């Protein structure tokens, strides 16, 4: 039996009937085809599934789609505007903040949320803020650099 939900995803209002047990990440990936949001661990540990729920970073493998009813979700597909990458995307690119890229969508969404609360974080604050996001490739150095670069960029904007 479906539960009706209205969820604004990347600015577009979606209405669907979903199974109550459907996890938000599978709603995004399977129902809407937005596969930019990854599933790494499925146990709330790795942060690959991080999206913004009303602007706050959440792990979408541990949120039910029905819990997002009436709320707004932003995924990695929703942050570029008019073909222009988001400054955080630019910064990850410029600073080599990724290798295989598996963690990257979650890292970028968590980093955007972090700067929203702390526009000029120290490297320590970046590391602390991103402790819920695991990367098996980069060793984190360039991710921290990317967030710093994006912070400078956004401060100038």
């Amino acid at each position, binding site marked *: 039996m479906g539960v009706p939900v209205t969820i604004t995803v990347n600015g577009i209002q979606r209405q669907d009937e979903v*199974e109550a047990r459907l996890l938000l990440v599978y709603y995004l990936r399977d129902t809407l085809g937005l596969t930019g949001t990854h599933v790494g661990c499925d*146990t709330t540990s790795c942060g690959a599934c991080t999206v913004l729920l009303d602007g706050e970073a959440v792990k979408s493998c*541990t*949120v039910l789609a*029905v*819990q997002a009813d009436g709320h707004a979700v932003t995924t990695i597909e929703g942050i570029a505007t008019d073909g222009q990458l988001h400054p955080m995307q630019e910064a990850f690119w410029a600073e080599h903040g990724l290798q295989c890229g598996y963690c990257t969508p979650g890292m970028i969404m*968590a980093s955007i949320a972090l700067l929203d609360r702390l526009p000029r974080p120290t490297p320590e604050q970046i590391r602390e803020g991103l*402790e*819920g996001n695991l990367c098996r490739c980069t060793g984190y150095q360039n991710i921290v650099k990317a967030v710093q670069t994006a912070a400078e960029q956004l401060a100038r904007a």
Partner: protein
Amino acid sequence: MIPAAFDYAAPASLEEAMALLAGHPDDAKLIAGGHSLLPLMKLRLATPQLLVDLGKIPDLRYIEEKGDHLAIGAMTTHYQVSISEAVRRRAGLLADSAAVVGDMQVRNRGTVGGSLAHADPASDLPAAALALGAQLVARSRSGERVIAAADFFQDIWTSALEPEEILTEVRIPFQDGKAQAYEKFRQRAGDWAIVGAAVSVARRNGTIDRADVILTNVGPTPVRARAVESALQGQPVSPEVVRAAAEQAADGLDPAPELKASPDYKRHLARVLTRRALERALQIS
């Protein structure tokens, strides 16, 4: 991992939620942030028939100063508690412990009510609630009762709440002037505490009037370190007094072994973290 199927209700009011629980005494579960419950449901360790979502009840998310206490709505998130000016000023220990729960994403979803109701001995807020002398407000169709934190945590994952009761509010007496801190030790970033120590010290004219010292994850519930408390009481605030008192933090402790920590290691951490928490709270080292 997908939870087993369940029916879902998202009541718009507390009254509606209480009626749903009363109508399903054996097979309904509340869901708040879902960050303890959903992982259990995904592993099918929890298989409720009916999930009652508190997320659409508007008036369970607040932090208010009321006369002599802070009133915090059950659905207030760890993040909201950690940044609240009022909590910092009136009950610093709660902000201190909420700030080190899990990671940023977990703190955005997890709630004060869910954390206390879940009564996980490794959770950070229960020790703080005990040290702060918190009062927990539970409501059901049969009425309202106020439970002292000291009576609330009964066993591992077992609180004093009845199945049809909803934890609606946490009340914390103003702690003005007390020296407080929470210290936890974790093996990896974002992890649960291997051991934690919540301390609250009231002073008068340079001597310790009363100390509350509560340990996380060394027993089935938060554990009061009575030997430390009495070693501090009536003593002057000094590094020697703190160090000697903290040495007694493991007296009588019998923690269960875990993959990450033997009982001896936990006893060691209890002593070290109690000292660190007292030193930070009292600004000595």
